[in-house]
């Protein structure tokens, strides 16, 4: 029977009431007295030298407060990068300067050149049109492989070339992997593109900067997943503002999906300009601007080789990936194709030898960074596609081949430097076969055939790594940050609690699920607990929300702080009941003395803490407030198995998703309703990547998919109802809640599931020559492959740029 409160209950979300009544407070809803508006004049060419900027006419226009150019920012820092990667040769990555406003050169379409601050946004836009900017256009580098050729134009003149780094992992495995592949009974090779995507949270980015003349205090309101990280990066590295003089507030945030992790130039600009103009300065991104200024995601081109022995056991895996960094290094960009990707290449399988080589490349495109899953979808896609291809080449069932190679004993140390604590991959596959009704597939395929359609079944197994940690390890790996999380639990005199968390909710429902945990621990109603987040003035230093870390890391910090509260409260209760502290038990909000009928209520103890008349003042301080910082011992490893059935119209190449099933192991689950919602959303984004979405540049570096007219977002009629299950639970062994994280699973596991299903449908329809089609599997691409289109379309040769051009 479902619980009606606490851990495991599908408590309804309390935050919904304000969102459903128009009462949410998003950053664009914040307007400060005297505020001016900024409009950024952005480059419309991909690469060029700025020869002159004439703002004189614009400055004379109505309402203009001030116009800024790159020269205004020469004295301050650039936008910093938070992760340093070391190349195979021992050199650290090439790290270009990233100015707040372009200076000297523009390096991608959308690079901001001038910022016009005016009384109204309309006046700022009008004035921007009167600015005369002369740019000597230079040849743009878009294609990653061409960018690495000797005669390629350099994105950054002061760097040696366009190679950011050349990373090998694990370098010591390289020779053994090469040998195993050369001696294998069978090697399956696949070249593929992980298409460039744009995260597209529905709320565009917004920043409002404010500066108080009397105190010199700055406040930035911004659409961020991690306000403390922005405070540290922008304060310490860009503007030189100490943290105690800078407050960053991220109020209700309308989705993030990774792209609101990063520190952006517009935030630094508004904060800087608030002081320079002596008034608040506000920027609200348009959607078109978002497409050319939000960090993009994915954009990997990979060759993967899987070696098998004569019994179909995986013996070695080798990959070569080109990863697009774009024109500058976004905050966590270098970590995505390396530590968030290479460490996942073992997947669910006991492949003994793995070598991953990643070449990160600068191009004249928008910077690329983490997008839902970040590196893990890229790893899963390659692996699960090559396994499917191997199964087909060897004539074995794809489920059988996977099961045969599953890791079954835990803990398991992979050859790519991580240790999985728990998992049961056969259990989730068993569950998938049941909820996906594999037994009924052939009947449904027959029925489709009668209607002239091809039906295919695609499956996939995945492993994910959440709550990246511990801090000392990630420091060794190049992170310039810690990856702990914090919580302060403040108990009020009348018994209610306020939890100030460094985690941030931008749709995940922390305001509902976090109180469920405390309710369970103390035995009080959930509505006695309030969650405060998103403001550096109230929450302790925290790293924010991304990588499915909130409950596993932030929730653990909250549990630790609450344990401290309970320990102290027991001391107070012991004093009140004149009993020994060791004999005090807490259940259902009552403290009792074991073996007696003595008890005091939670509220009696909290009141005593703040009105300490009858209180052991000589032993403990009054008050009931505790803080904990939690630094995990390891990643968590959610896993699972997904299945998709597609129907393909051979006349048109149109693919529709007919059924989708997901069996996930997230460890313990606090709020099943919220968890299922996270999976639904992730799957829809994965279906979007597989069938619809593509961020496309032309050969000159023009972004040709910069609106919702051109970038195909999944809509209600593109996705089916989904069957999701999380009943297979192997709790995490190293965090107090036994939770693993659920935010990214859907986006990681669904793209290969969909593509495997389409390839299956094509083979069932007799198109056995089609081994692969690059995402998105648009009707045009599928139809062309069916007509025997060129091998470039089918097999994945060619370059990233060329293959982003639609066809």
């Amino acid at each position, binding site marked *: 029977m479902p619980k009606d409160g606490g851990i495991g209950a599908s408590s*309804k*979300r309390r*935050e*919904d*009431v*304000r*969102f*459903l*009544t*128009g*009462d*949410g*407070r*998003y950053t*664009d*809803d914040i*307007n400060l007295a005297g505020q001016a508006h900024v409009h950024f004049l952005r480059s419309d060419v991909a690469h060029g030298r700025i020869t002159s900027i004439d703002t004189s006419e614009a400055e004379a226009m109505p309402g203009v407060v001030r116009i800024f150019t790159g020269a205004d920012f020469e004295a301050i820092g650039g936008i910093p990068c938070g992760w340093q990667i070391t190349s195979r040769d021992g050199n650290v990555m090439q790290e270009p300067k990233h100015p707040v406003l372009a200076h000297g050169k523009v390096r991608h379409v959308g690079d901001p050149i001038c910022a016009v601050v005016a009384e109204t946004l*309309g006046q700022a836009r009008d004035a921007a049109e009167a600015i005369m900017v002369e740019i000597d256009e230079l040849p743009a580098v878009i294609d990653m492989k061409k960018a690495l050729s000797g005669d390629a134009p350099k994105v950054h003149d002061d760097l040696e070339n366009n190679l950011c780094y050349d990373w090998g992992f694990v370098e010591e495995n390289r020779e053994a992997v090469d040998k195993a592949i050369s001696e294998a009974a069978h090697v399956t090779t696949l070249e593929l593109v992980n298409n460039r995507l744009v995260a*597209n*949270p*529905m*709320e*565009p980015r917004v920043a409002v900067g404010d500066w108080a003349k009397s105190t010199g205090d700055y406040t930035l309101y911004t659409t961020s997943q991690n306000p403390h990280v922005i405070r540290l990066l922008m304060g310490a590295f860009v503007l030189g503002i100490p943290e105690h003089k800078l407050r960053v507030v991220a109020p*209700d*945030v*309308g*989705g993030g*999906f990774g792209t609101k992790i990063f520190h952006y130039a517009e935030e630094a600009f508004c904060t800087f300009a608030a002081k320079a103009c002596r008034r608040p300065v506000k920027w609200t991104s*348009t*959607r*078109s601007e978002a497409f050319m200024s939000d960090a993009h995601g994915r954009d990997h081109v990979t060759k993967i080789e899987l070696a098998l022995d004569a019994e179909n056991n995986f013996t070695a895996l080798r990959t070569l990936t080109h990863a697009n960094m774009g024109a500058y290094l976004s905050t966590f960009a270098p970590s995505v194709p390396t530590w968030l990707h290479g460490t996942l290449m073992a997947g669910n399988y006991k492949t003994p030898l793995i070598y991953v080589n990643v070449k990160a490349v600068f191009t004249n495109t928008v910077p690329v960074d983490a997008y839902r899953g970040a590196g893990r979808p890229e790893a899963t896609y390659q692996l699960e596609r090559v396994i499917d291809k191997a199964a087909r080449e060897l004539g074995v069932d794809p489920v059988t081949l996977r099961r045969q190679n599953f890791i079954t004993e835990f803990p398991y140390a992979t050859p790519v430097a991580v240790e999985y604590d728990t998992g049961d991959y056969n259990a989730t596959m068993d569950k998938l076969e049941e909820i996906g009704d594999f037994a009924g597939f052939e009947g449904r395929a027959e029925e489709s055939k009668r209607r002239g359609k091809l039906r295919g079944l695609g499956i996939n197994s995945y492993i994910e790594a959440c709550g990246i940690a511990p801090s000392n390890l990630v420091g060794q790996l190049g992170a310039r940050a810690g990856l702990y999380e914090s919580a302060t639990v403040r108990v009020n005199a009348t018994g209610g609690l306020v939890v100030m968390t460094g985690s941030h909710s*931008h*749709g*995940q*429902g922390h305001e509902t699920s976090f109180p469920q945990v405390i309710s369970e621990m103390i035995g009080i109603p959930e509505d006695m607990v309030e969650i405060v987040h998103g403001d550096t003035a109230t929450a302790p230093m925290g790293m924010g929300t991304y990588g499915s870390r909130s409950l596993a890391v932030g929730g653990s910090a909250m549990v630790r702080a609450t344990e401290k509260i309970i320990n102290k409260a027991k001391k107070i209760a012991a004093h009140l009941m004149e009993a020994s502290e060791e004999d005090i038990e807490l259940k259902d909000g009552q403290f009792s003395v074991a073996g007696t009928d003595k008890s005091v209520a939670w509220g009696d103890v909290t009141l005593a803490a703040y009105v300490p008349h009858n209180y052991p003042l000589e032993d403990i301080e009054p008050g009931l407030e505790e803080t904990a910082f939690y630094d995990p011992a390891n990643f968590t490893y959610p896993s699972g198995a997904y299945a998709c059935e597609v129907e393909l119209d051979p006349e048109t190449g149109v693919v529709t998703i007919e*059924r989708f099933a997901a069996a996930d192991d997230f460890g313990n689950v606090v709020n099943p*309703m*919220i968890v*299922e*919602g996270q999976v*639904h*959303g992730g*799957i*829809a*984004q994965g279906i979007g990547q597989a069938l619809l979405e593509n961020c496309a540049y032309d050969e000159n570096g023009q972004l040709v998919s910069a*609106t*919702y007219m051109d970038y195909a*977002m*999944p*809509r*209600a*009629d593109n*996705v*089916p*109802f*989904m*069957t*999701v*299950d999380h009943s297979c639970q192997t709790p995490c062994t190293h965090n107090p809640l036994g939770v693993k994280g659920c935010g990214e699973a*859907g986006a990681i596991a669904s793209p290969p599931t969909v593509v495997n299903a389409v390839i299956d449908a094509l083979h069932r329809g007799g198109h056995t020559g089609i081994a692969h089609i690059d995402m998105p599997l648009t009707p045009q691409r599928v139809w062309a492959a069916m007509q025997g289109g060129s091998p470039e379309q089918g097999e994945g040769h060619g370059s990233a740029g060329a293959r982003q051009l639609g066809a």
Partner: protein
Amino acid sequence: MAMISMTVNGKTHSAEAEGRTLLVEFLREKLHLTGTHVGCDTSQCGACTVHVNGQNVKACTMFAAEADGAEVTTIEGMANGDGSLNVMQQAFQDHHGLQCGFCTPGMVMSATKLLEENPKPSEQEIRDYLQGNICRCTGYHNIIKAILAASGQDMPAVAAE
């Protein structure tokens, strides 16, 4: 600048607006009704959906001047008289039809209009109707479920879990 008057959520409002001021800008900036959101600039996302004279309108596609004298309903006018959630809003909460909440006002406005036009829509009719409202969080699963529930219909078996 011209003086624009309209009845919004039953109350008459007047404010000055430029000729180029969009209805959504008028609602958000002049009337401080910030529940109506702007998610794109090509009339694709539907976050700004409101009702104008009983019709579903994307408030970014209409100038404020065009709505002069009109009856407008926004998300702020949807709750019951006592402030409690109406049937559609309650269904969205009961079925977890929202996550970040940014597309939600537009979704509720569109879904409400759908049920006025078609009180018992099928799953496919709901999906077709919502083509102009993009949600990035929910995968639409629970939105469809909420609208079916608000129309008094059960979920199809495949999604019943």
